[in-house]
């Protein structure tokens, strides 16, 4: 197990370097200059600005500075928001985005898993079939369509929740539901198919013949292998979740990390773009690493290199 974790770590480090370097050059090669706007600024001032931000140095010096800054979690100043560093903006955005993401993730697991188990155990029940039918719809309906329709119905017709904004608990509900809907559906379907496959195995029949209680069979024997596909989905789903918050924050006017990212992209705020993408990449790689280790703990075959990844 220790060797496996070490190998994953060894893989994560060059990956991190690759993605950070790629982002750096993507932003650097982009045409146009940070301080170019509709109204031209005098050449002396532009040169001065460039010097102040280190943009007059050759690319390898800028690259080294950027990497050195990252190591200290210093992303530099924003080009568009005066008096604020990128690090501060990222931290500010995270305080908003992370609770939404966590709540959506918790809701997806808390509803998706039981629903999937129920669907596997009672495949004929009308309620379950109706829910799973709804789940098909949930998987394909984009969140930027679902969100506005929820607003149209719950905010503008029933007046239950505010249509947008941030700060109070009421503002939390619609964004989290919008963000998690697709995951509830997806996790329910993964759990259902995984559990059905597990319940059809011979060792479950043996357990039944041995006279174990159905609850024990389900919890101790069937659920563990059934959850592997769900866990494997957890890694990629994080990346989608991050992309999802960008849209959610746009729909509900929430001042989170995604909101700042879109603003930065539209404003060509180079350091902010670079900072947010770098931070997201680091966070995702670390979380994925943890996820991989969790999967390996659940299924020892993977650490031995024999497990077929689902």
């Amino acid at each position: 197990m220790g060797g496996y974790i070490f190998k994953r770590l060894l893989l994560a480090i060059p990956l991190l370097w690759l993605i950070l370097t790629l982002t750096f050059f993507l932003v650097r090669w982009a045409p146009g200059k940070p301080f170019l706007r509709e109204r031209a600024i005098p050449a002396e001032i532009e040169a001065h600005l460039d010097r102040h931000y280190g943009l007059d140095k050759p690319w390898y010096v800028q690259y080294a500075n950027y990497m050195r800054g990252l190591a200290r979690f210093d992303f530099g100043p924003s080009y568009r928001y005066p008096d604020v560093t990128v690090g501060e903006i990222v931290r500010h955005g995270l305080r908003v985005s992370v609770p939404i993401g966590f709540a959506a993730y918790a809701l997806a697991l808390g509803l998706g898993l039981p629903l999937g188990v129920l669907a596997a155990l009672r495949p004929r029940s009308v309620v379950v079939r109706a829910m799973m039918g709804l789940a098909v719809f949930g998987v394909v309906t984009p969140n930027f369509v679902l969100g506005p329709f929820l607003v149209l119905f719950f905010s503008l017709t029933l007046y239950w929740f505010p249509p947008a904004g941030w700060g109070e608990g009421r503002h939390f509900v619609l964004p989290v539901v919008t963000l998690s809907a697709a995951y509830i559906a997806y996790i329910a379907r993964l759990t259902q198919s995984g559990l059905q496959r597990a319940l059809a195995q011979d060792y479950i029949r043996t357990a039944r013949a041995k006279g174990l209680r159905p609850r024990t069979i389900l919890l101790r024997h069937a659920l563990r292998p059934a959850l592997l596909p769900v866990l494997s989905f957890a890694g990629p789903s994080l990346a989608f979740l991050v992309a999802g918050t960008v849209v959610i924050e746009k729909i509900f006017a929430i001042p989170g990390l995604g909101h700042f990212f879109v603003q930065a992209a539209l404003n060509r705020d180079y350091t902010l773009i670079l900072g947010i993408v770098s931070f997201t990449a680091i966070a995702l790689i670390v979380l994925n690493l943890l996820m991989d280790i969790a999967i390996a703990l659940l299924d020892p075959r993977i650490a031995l290199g024999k497990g077929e990844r689902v």
Partner: protein
Amino acid sequence: MRMWELFRERPLALVAAGFLGFVSIAVLIGPMGLAYDYAQTDLELGLSPPSWANGHYLGTDILGRDLLARLLQGGRLSLLVALVATAISTTIGVIYGALSGYVGGRVDDVMMRIVDVLFSLPYLFLVLVLMALFAEPEVVEPVIRLLRLRPDGAMAEWLRGPGVRLVLLFIALGAVSWLTLARIVRGQILALKTEPFVEAARAAGAGTWTILVRHLLPNASGPIIAYTVLTVPSVMLQEAFISFLGLGLQAPQASWGALVYEGVQAMSIAPWLLVFPAGIMVLTLVCFHVVGETLREAYERRP
């Protein structure tokens, strides 16, 4: 022949395929039959609800542009991006997966590990960065020179206008959507390459390329087609996502995602601007899904 029987057994899939055919034909020839152009504004008729009387069957937006005409034009763009990007990603995925599966061993390990890793990257962020920063004249002019296009020709003009964003979408979405297909193809090739007919082909003197293209890939065509069909809605969704954020095509060009965003902004006063674009987009996505899943089930059940 088998395809037809497959769809006859599943009325739902047949309906879905029929709907997709209808949408394709509608967006192709529909705009010609309309009284209004998608970019034509009429400020006096701004935000008029759907009506038969004034000929705006699905209503108008805030500038008085006909929603039906914009929907059809938007459908052209959405489908065009989805199909071209899917074609690119299918090409990459098939080549990558086939090589990985056929060569096997160490190379296969490394290539598949790379796919695992790419799966968990925030690549949509990178696509957004690309769209935001690179749709500029400074990028277009060198490309025009590189391709030796006439600087005042139609192609160059198109690239300077809406073309650059379309091409960027093709490339960016095509470059990030091939991962699942690569895995599938690799699995198929891995299973097929030990079959006797491959050995027979090799014994007959066929080279690697011939074996791959003539013998292995045709046998894997079922899953390749199924997953290609399933890639179309996911690419379409990603394009809509980008356009929804305002980083896709620019007005008056508007794909379905951009129309949905315009609808969101106006939904409290003009709900039809949200309902129709969102409805047609979700229906199209669902239909692509149903057709793709049907094809996938069909090959998975085959002995």
